[in-house]
């Protein structure tokens, strides 16, 4: 039996039969190689049954891949950003070669990256549009599908309003695709547009941006080669970002560095640690404060850094002082002596970095968790220098990009927000009348109201109408590239699946949306649209280090699949706003040109510095990959095409492309000049703040940096963001050209002074600021006290379902409140769980995470035989002590039951010391089973993944971060019994 790891023997039998059938069927590459058809005209092989391929002359002898065209794209799994080098012969992807030139992956891949070719020759892809007719999957044409979907949407809009249609997009889309999807929501008239970042790093984006300006990884993977101390809390990079581990392990080796891992599990990453500390899931803040307690006690903090660049240190100190070693150990389980050792390494062996991923973010306290990590970096001055920083590893290949382009419920593209000014800015960029947008919304107020988080879509379907703060409940889900099994509380989402009037799943695979919706009892009103993988699309993607990379189209979309953008075009046309929406975009055979969309992004994205990365510059980077340095990621200054650029022009890349800003590999790094990628903290929260003193009086404290500025700055102190008004005060307005000034006046109308670096479409204000060595957004302080957030100073709050009921009264979750149009009743549930003694009934903590072989909801990777063979069974990790108490044998079947909805799931047990006593862990990639029932028959024939299994989220429970709506799949309670 193959479960995880220890015994990795292949299981044969029925699964093997399925794969063998594929080898004899549509395995095009071996077919071609064996039949000598490589030299024939096979450009459309993907859409033809093999029987109808014309026989052609046999290939000449010699290497079979000779004569292949090489195309470069980006791996579509995690966000490391590995270049994929594809060999294509006659339109067929025949081989994958190492991408030696990429400074990020240097030839390497993980199991997923080394097998991506399979994605585009998989015979189990969804081949053509389908719909449910009386509960049966039936083939329909694209025309019919788009027409029926469009008509139904219009009908729902008429009756229930624009907000009743939910637009769930994807981090798998290119920047162009995800940007366009957000735009689709705007033109439809709703802010109910979301994607995977919600359940991935929404808390990072909010927490980190509220600390120092932008919510993204501050440094990058290559830069970690400079680190002396790597501290992981909530990241299992060895499984989630394996190629990133290359840089991390080499850093550890070359610098004889400290490799510290905090994790409830002794992970594959922890196996390489110099120091591993186990802690109880859900206590990240006490762990970090416990560490900071030692730092403050010993005076290891960076006092000068704090004085110049940090706001709110005194407030923070008061909170940290509560976490003495005894209290820290009582709550987290980490011994004080070990904590002191780690604190010393982190604070004194510099440069140090903190690495995190979903271990920190996926909590009802996610935003506070990441804030505590930022605070630890600020306290020790470990930010804005090489080898330091918040190295936040993003999950999907373009989740950073999709977040930046605003495929989100709280903002328009590039973090402009939803206020009127933001809508006006984008109205100008899109050249569409602001009043028209107003007319598209159910109520003009809804334009400025954040949408419903994807984590709550089913609540928005099921809750009584008066509890959903929009015109009506959700009636339709349009899902383009998002799993359903990655969202918690599946038993409740089943009810909503049944209740929806319209469900559209646009994806390369039917996904668990399809199998669960049939199980839920849907008989009609359900459509499957085949979407191409990103290897079949061109466009830019953003790696975790904020680097943009242009991916070429490797092969044309297979079967009847369509490019994401083409589907959006067809839908916009049907819904009647294509002319407005595609005004400045060339459309060829229904396919919008990706380069045109990127140019539009360049024209509007001043706030985030996506303005300098033109398609031409990005393509030049892909062509010249070998010229970039491994550690600095910089190209030699004298190179004619990419001279002086940092690889991937990491944003912010200020000014228009002609300014040739090199990109910013390290955020907030004043040791570099503005035009050299330098930066400062962004003053985003006012210029000063009134504080109450103990004696009742008040004082005003500046939020601008004190005596520190980026290299070569003409202003030798803190300064606010640049506006036309600020330029005038400085006397720099004369540097603006006449054309720039005309644009500023046109935008500003009678108030041109208010036109800023982020709304000036001419780019003049940015250009002038850079000319004077200044950062366009200003030079402020980072905030330890992030006033405005639910917990301005992070405080520990027990998970909704915690085994430590004794701690709930001291560390309760936040009171019930209304957030994102819905009630958040976490407090009531936490209290009820304590009152009802749930922890006695379900005594084990349940956590979840990743396996290296699978990605996200896993349907795509479980459909890839090369990967599926390596993980054939859903399992739960349980400690030997807990297993013995329950009579559970390693490899035996167990029932896992959850704390809500009488949830149950059947899977295999993996008895291992990897988890501590009292903790169980499941991978979250499985799907296709529900409550012990195999749903294989619910997939359209021939599209079922090779491997199915219970979803972890069948067991997970309530819990939402108040600032972002993040779900809580990392801590809940369960019970396990032998089946």
């Amino acid at each position, binding site marked *: 039996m193959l479960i995880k790891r*220890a015994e990795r023997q292949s299981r044969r039998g029925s699964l093997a039969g399925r*794969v063998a059938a594929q080898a004899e069927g549509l395995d095009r590459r071996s077919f071609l190689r064996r039949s000598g058809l490589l030299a024939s005209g096979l450009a459309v092989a993907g859409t033809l049954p093999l029987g109808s391929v014309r026989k052609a002359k046999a290939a000449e002898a010699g290497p079979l891949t000779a004569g292949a065209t090489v195309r470069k794209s980006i791996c579509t799994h995690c966000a490391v950003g590995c270049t994929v080098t594809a060999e294509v012969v006659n339109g067929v992807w025949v081989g994958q070669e*190492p991408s030696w030139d990429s400074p990020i992956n240097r*030839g*390497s891949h993980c199991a997923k990256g080394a097998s991506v070719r399979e994605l585009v020759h998989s015979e189990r892809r969804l081949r053509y549009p389908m719909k449910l007719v009386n509960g049966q999957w039936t083939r329909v044409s694209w025309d019919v599908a788009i027409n029926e979907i469009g008509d139904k949407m219009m009908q729902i809009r008429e009756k229930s309003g624009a907000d009743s249609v939910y637009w769930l997009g994807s981090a798998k889309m290119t920047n162009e695709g995800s940007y366009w999807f957000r735009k689709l929501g705007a033109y439809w008239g709703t802010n109910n547009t979301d994607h995977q970042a919600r359940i991935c790093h929404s808390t990072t984006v909010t927490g980190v941006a509220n600390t120092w300006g932008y919510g993204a990884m501050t440094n990058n993977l290559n830069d970690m080669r400079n680190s002396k101390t790597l501290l992981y809390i909530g990241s299992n990079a060895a499984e989630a970002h*394996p190629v990133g581990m290359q840089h991390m392990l080499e850093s550890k080796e070359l610098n004889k560095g400290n490799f510290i891992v905090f994790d409830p599990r002794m992970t594959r990453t922890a196996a390489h640690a110099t120091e*591993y500390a186990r802690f109880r899931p859900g206590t990240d803040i006490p762990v970090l404060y416990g560490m900071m307690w030692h730092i403050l006690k010993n005076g290891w903090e960076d006092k000068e850094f704090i004085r110049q660049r940090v706001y709110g240190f005194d407030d923070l100190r008061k909170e940290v002082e509560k976490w003495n070693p005894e209290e820290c150990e009582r709550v987290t389980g980490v011994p004080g002596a070990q904590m002191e050792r780690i604190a010393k390494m982190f604070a004194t062996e510099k440069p140090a970095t903190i690495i995190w991923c979903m271990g920190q973010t996926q909590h009802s306290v996610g935003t506070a968790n990441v804030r505590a990590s930022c605070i630890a970096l600020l306290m020790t001055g470990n930010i804005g220098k090489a080898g330091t920083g918040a190295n936040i590893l993003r999950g999907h290949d373009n989740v950073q990009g999709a977040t930046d382009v605003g495929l989100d419920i709280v903002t328009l593209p590039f973090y402009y927000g939803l206020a009127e000014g933001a809508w006006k800015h984008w109205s100008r960029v899109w050249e569409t009348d602001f009043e028209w947008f107003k007319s598209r919304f159910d109520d003009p107020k809804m334009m400025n109201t954040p949408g419903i988080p994807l984590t709550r879509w089913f609540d928005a379907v099921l809750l009584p109408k008066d509890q959903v703060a929009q015109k009506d409940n959700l009636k339709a889900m349009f899902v383009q590239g998002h799993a359903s099994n990655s969202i918690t509380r599946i038993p409740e989402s089943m009810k909503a699946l049944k209740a929806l009037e319209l469900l559209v799943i646009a994806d390369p695979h039917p996904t668990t949306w399809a199998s669960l919706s049939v199980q839920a009892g849907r008989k009609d009103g359900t459509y499957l649209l085949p979407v191409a993988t990103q290897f079949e699309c061109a466009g830019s993607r953003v790696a975790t280090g904020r680097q943009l990379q242009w991916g070429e189209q490797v092969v044309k979309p297979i079967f009847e699949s369509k490019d994401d953008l083409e589907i959006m075009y067809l839908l916009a046309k049907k819904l009647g706003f294509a002319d407005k929406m595609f005004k400045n975009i060339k459309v060829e055979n229904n396919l919008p040109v990706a380069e045109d969309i990127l140019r539009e992004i360049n024209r509007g994205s001043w706030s985030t510095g996506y303005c300098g990365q033109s398609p031409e510059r990005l393509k030049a980077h892909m062509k010249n990959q070998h010229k970039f340095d491994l550690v600095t990621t910089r190209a030699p200054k004298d190179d004619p095409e990419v001279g002086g650029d940092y690889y991937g022009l990491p944003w912010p890349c200020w000014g228009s492309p002609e300014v040739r800003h090199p990109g910013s590999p390290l955020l907030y790094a004043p040791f570099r000049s503005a035009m050299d990628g330098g930066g400062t903290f962004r003053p985003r929260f006012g210029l000063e703040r009134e504080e109450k003193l103990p004696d009742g009086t008040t004082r005003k404290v500046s939020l601008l940096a004190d005596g520190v500025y980026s290299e070569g700055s003409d202003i030798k102190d803190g300064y606010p963001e640049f506006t036309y008004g600020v330029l005038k005060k400085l006397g720099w307005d004369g540097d603006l050209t006449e054309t720039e000034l005309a644009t500023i006046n046109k935008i500003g109308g009678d108030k041109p002074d208010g036109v800023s670096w982020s709304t000036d479409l001419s780019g003049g204000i940015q250009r002038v600021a850079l000319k004077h060595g200044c950062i366009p957004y200003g030079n402020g302080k980072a905030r330890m006290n992030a006033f405005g957030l639910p917990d301005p100073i992070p405080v520990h709050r027990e998970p909704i379902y915690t085994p430590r009921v004794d701690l709930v009264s001291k560390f309760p979750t936040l009171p019930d409140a209304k957030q994102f149009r819905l009630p958040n009743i976490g407090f009531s549930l936490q209290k009820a769980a304590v009152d009802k003694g749930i922890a006695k009934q379900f005594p084990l903590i349940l956590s979840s995470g990743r396996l*290296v072989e699978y990605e996200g909801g896993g349907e795509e990777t479980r459909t890839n035989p090369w*990967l599926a063979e390596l993980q054939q069974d859903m399992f739960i990790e349980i400690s030997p002590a807990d297993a013995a108490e329950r009579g559970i044998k390693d490899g035996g079947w167990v029932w896992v039951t959850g704390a809500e909805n009488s949830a149950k799931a059947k899977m295999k047990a993996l008895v291992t010391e*990897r988890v501590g006593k009292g903790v169980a862990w499941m991978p979250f990639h499985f799907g296709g089973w529900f409550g012990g029932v195999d749903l294989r028959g619910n997939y359209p024939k021939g599209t079922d993944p090779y491997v199915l299994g219970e979803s972890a989220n069948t067991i997970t429970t309530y819990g939402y971060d108040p600032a972002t709506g993040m779900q809580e799949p990392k801590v809940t309670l369960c019970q396990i019994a032998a089946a």
Partner: protein
Amino acid sequence: MARMKFLCDADRCIECNACVTACKNEHEVPWGINRRRVVTLNDGKPGERSISMACMHCTDPPCAAVCPTNVFYVTADAVVLNNKDLCIGCGYCFYACPFGAPQYPKTTNFGSRGKMDKCTFCAGGPEADGSKEEYAKYGANRLAEGKLPLCAEMCSTKSLLAGDGEIIATIYKERVAKRGYGSGAWGWQTAYRETIAT
């Protein structure tokens, strides 16, 4: 000529299985045949280490010594290859191999196990280099194209090294000297009757 070897640096291996799927991808290896696999020792415990395993292309290969039909031959690069035309599927090589490398496509209790398959060091088989026939039986011949085995070329952490034994030994020695630790060239004593002094 070079003496080709594999070396897995257990202090770098993170059990990501890139080597396994790269092999599947390059040679279209069917489900159930594992030319390469990753083995983890002390799984989930302190001291956990993983090693990527395949045919090591031994000096004086024990498989060849027991083969009744003379399937095995050694190339000028010291790569141990097998001629599937001669194989009767007796399974002796499986028992002789210290690394568990030989794979058989059939699981029947009776008769032949089918023609043995194993890692070719991406060097194909007896047919003409790069021919369709060679590909169908053995997979790609990267060595003939001047490339090294894809498993090592794609290794996520540069743990798995493949190439001239002296060169990879030097790389490993330098790495150990620089970082100050190394658990040794796993399997070398068995396969090549030598170790790397570090």
